[in-house]
Structures are given as structure tokens and as C-alpha cells.
């Protein structure tokens, strides 16, 4: 694959290095003279000096034949414009943007960017996984469907506690997929009883997540 990486900071550099090692054709675009020289020394002739936000630079980089354009500069607005230019002017099939402000995820999606990576969100998810006290953990956001896979522990006062699955009223469009009890996994059926302390993995629509959280973790 031919992959254009816009931005030759730390993320861009290590990404390019990994992609080169995997045998891909890679070109890093970096406007800073020092940074681009450094990449050249380390990785060979896979770097071009220029501003990836400019159409002329992208044209020179051969963006029109790129399979993927990845924008990993430190500025969200630059990453957005690079991906939009790549898509609209050079018909690049797949554009991926790094985002710094997690709130921009929705905006980028609305504006046609194929995928976003937010280090803030990744770190947050890692921290949340380490915190057992957290009421509901975001396992994954199945964003195109507006679905979320979440995990939570049933509290002592939860209205679900002590009831069979068939007798509980879950929020709309919510399904309990898996329960973990004393390190054993249970795929619940209607007669499965839910106990306080059970860890529940559920699929829900984003808008019903708060309701589910209240239900599971009522104090």
C-alpha cells in the first residue's frame, strides 16, 4: 500500500518506521527542516519537506495514488483540513486523523473523515479499565451504529439484583450479552438470575447508556 503520513513529529516518525518495516511504501510530509532531516537520516528517502495542508504539496507527494492518508500533526484543525483536501481533491480512499480534543471525534465523522484516533480517549479508556469503582466502562464505541459495549458491576441496591433476566425491565435497545461471576463467564438466558456483584457486559444505544448505568449501579 502507498501511505502518506502528514506530520513528522514523534507519532508520525514511529508510525512511518513501523509501516516501512511492514513493507509499505511510505511518505512523510513535514514542514520543519530539522525534523524532516532527522527522519531522512533515520528512515532514508521516505520524507518530503512541505506543508501538507497545501494542495501543491499533496500533489507533489502523489496523494492521488495514495491508498491511505494519515494526518498526525499536533493540531486538530490541520489534520481535518489535510484529510478533507486528500479526500475531495485527490480522491484518497481512506483518511485517518489524529485528534487531540476528544470532542472533535463527532465533528470529524460528520465532515467525512473515515477514522479518528484520539490518544486522550485511548489513555482514558486504559485508566477506566484499571478502576474497578467505575460504574460503567466504555468497552468500545460502535460509532457508526451509535452502539456502545459497556461493562458494569451490579450494585446491592440495583433493581436488577436478585431477579431473573426475563423479569427485569432494561432500557430500550439494550441487551445483556455476558455476565461474569467469580471469574466464570455466563451467557445469560431468561432464567439466569442477576446477583449483586455480577459484572455485566451489555450492548446499548449511546442515548440509553445513562439509564442503564442508573439501573445497574443504583445506590
Amino acid at each position, binding site marked *: 500500500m502507498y501511505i502518506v503520513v502528514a506530520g513528522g513529529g514523534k507519532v508520525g516518525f514511529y508510525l512511518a518506521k513501523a509501516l516501512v518495516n511492514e513493507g509499505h511504501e511510505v511518505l512523510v510530509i513535514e514542514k520543519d527542516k530539522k525534523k524532516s532531516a532527522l527522519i531522512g537520516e533515520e528512515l532514508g528517502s521516505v520524507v518530503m519537506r512541505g506543508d501538507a495542508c497545501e494542495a501543491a504539496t499533496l500533489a507533489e507527494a502523489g496523494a492521488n495514488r495514495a491508498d491511505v492518508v494519515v494526518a498526525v500533526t499536533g493540531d486538530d484543525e490541520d489534520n481535518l483540513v489535510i484529510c478533507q483536501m486528500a479526500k475531495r481533491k485527490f480522491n484518497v480512499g481512506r483518511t485517518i486523523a489524529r485528534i487531540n*480534543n476528544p470532542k472533535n471525534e463527532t465533528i470529524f465523522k*460528520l465532515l467525512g473523515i473515515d477514522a479518528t484516533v484520539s490518544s486522550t480517549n485511548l489513555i482514558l479508556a486504559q485508566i477506566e479499565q484499571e478502576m474497578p469503582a467505575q460504574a460503567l466502562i466504555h468497552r468500545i464505541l460502535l460509532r457508526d451504529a451509535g452502539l456502545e459495549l459497556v461493562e458494569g458491576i451490579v450494585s446491592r441496591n440495583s433493581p436488577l439484583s436478585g431477579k431473573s433476566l426475563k423479569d427485569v425491565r432494561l432500557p430500550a435497545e439494550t441487551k445483556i450479552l455476558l455476565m461474569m461471576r467469580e471469574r466464570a463467564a455466563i451467557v445469560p438466558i431468561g432464567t439466569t438470575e442477576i446477583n449483586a456483584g455480577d459484572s455485566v457486559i451489555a450492548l446499548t444505544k449511546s442515548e440509553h447508556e445513562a439509564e442503564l448505568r442508573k439501573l445497574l449501579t443504583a445506590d
Partner: protein
Amino acid sequence: MRIVILGCGRVGARLANRLHAQGHQVAIIDKSPDAFSRLSPEFGGEAILGTGIDGEVLEQAGIEQADVFITVTEDDNINIMASQMAQLIYRVKKVITRIYDPAREKVFRELGLTTVCPTEMTAKLLRDKLVGAAPATTPAARGGR
């Protein structure tokens, strides 16, 4: 009209002063507090400190009720991103974006932004001063009435 301006540079401040003097309700956003010193003492609109690509800042400036949103920061990409947020998320009826880079201006004009490109305009004005303005194409010249 309720107008939100992003960027309190020379153009933004001048525009804000003028629109406020004409009786419009104006809010102006800039990331630097010093920028607001460009506003005239008579300016009675709102000055909001923050970056224009943050929904919370835009909302604080009243973007949800705005009739017009104008972006005139020095950074083309900030202008482009903020304008698209105003258009797509906040459904502002009239959004005007300043883009210095003519190539970028063309792409985003085609994407549906209303754009102003000072580079193109200045180059044209300078050329006109140099060789004389091109004859205006009036309806008559085009074979109209």
C-alpha cells in the same frame, strides 16, 4: 442581526466595531486577551476569550442563536474548521470564511463554504492598478437588455 466573529485581528476588530455601530448584536472571539484592545472604546458587544474550534466557546458566544458567523483568524484551517462546525452542527444560516490560500479556498468553496480569499483579491487589485481594470461585463455587454 446576531453576529459572531471569530478572530479579533485588524479585520475582525474593524468589522466588529462597524457592525456594532450599525446596531447589530455582535460577539467576537479571540484566543489572545491582548487582541481585544483593537476594539474601539464604543464597542458594546461581547468579547469572548477562547479558541474558535471549541464548541463550548462558540456556544458561549451565542452561536446557537446567531444569524451570521464570520471567521477571520490568521489561520486558514481554524477558519475552515470553525465554519464547518457552525454550518453543520449549529446550522447558522450565513457563514463566511476567510481563506488566504487560493487552492484551499477553491476546495472548500466547492464543499459549500462561502469564502473570501484576500490573496486572490489583492493580486487582482494590484494587476488592475498595473494594467488597468478589465472592462466590466455589464448585462448589455453580455448581450442582455
